[in-house]
């Protein structure tokens, strides 16, 4: 919201479409290396989403920890496995597979209905007003600590 309008919209649409394709790619690839790299792409996209939400430290933290450590561990774990096992995949649709697809789409449709039906502005205003009221009662040294851990976190971490 601090970014100019067209950049915000373009980033939202681009990252959203890459996220949708990458999410489908994690599930639908049979080769586990392809799905591991698709998971890495999804994690990078999620971390770029946090730029839109104005929490800049989390972007770098997510990139370092999730993509740099956890995804690398997943790729190593995939590489240690025997590669001849997924050639035995017969690609049959069992009864469990037929049942889960409508169940999962109904979960997603339910969540969409919930998201579009709740008035988020009312909820955020009431919870954030509590936070604003409580901040006036904190002493000065605590406020320095709060500022160090929120506004000046990045130079704090570098030092």
């Amino acid at each position: 919201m601090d970014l100019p309008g067209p950049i915000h919209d373009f980033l939202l649409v681009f990252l959203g479409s890459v996220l949708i394709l990458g999410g489908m790619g994690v599930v639908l690839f049979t080769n586990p290396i392809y799905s591991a790299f698709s998971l890495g792409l999804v994690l990078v996209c999620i971390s770029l989403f946090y730029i839109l939400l104005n929490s800049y430290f989390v972007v770098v933290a997510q990139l370092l920890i999730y993509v740099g450590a956890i995804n690398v561990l997943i790729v190593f774990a995939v590489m240690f496995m025997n590669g001849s096992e997924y050639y035995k995949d017969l690609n049959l649709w069992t009864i469990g597979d037929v049942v889960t697809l409508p169940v999962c789409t109904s979960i997603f449709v339910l969540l969409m209905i919930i998201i579009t039906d709740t008035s988020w502005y009312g909820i955020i205003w009431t919870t954030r007003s509590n936070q604003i009221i409580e901040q006036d009662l904190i002493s000065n040294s605590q406020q320095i600590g709060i500022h160090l851990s929120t506004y000046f976190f990045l130079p704090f971490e570098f030092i």
Partner: protein
Amino acid sequence: MMLEHVLVLSAYLFSIGIYGMIMSRNMDIALMCLELILNAVNMNFKYFLNFVMAITLAEAAIGLTIVSSIYHNRKSTCINQSNLLNK
């Protein structure tokens, strides 16, 4: 729907992760879908708050140690064969 795109995308990733965990024949893909689910929930938290990362990081670390110990003990990744508790 302008500000709610993040919530919709996290709901989508969550449902795709659940579907992938149930559907996957391979244990690696199930672990990756679990990471998808955790990241989707994390994204949902961060829409409302600014710094929430500790729980999901601990969860990911624990999950990875469990999976590495599973890989160390058994040599195959078929989920259908994990019925050792049945005997």
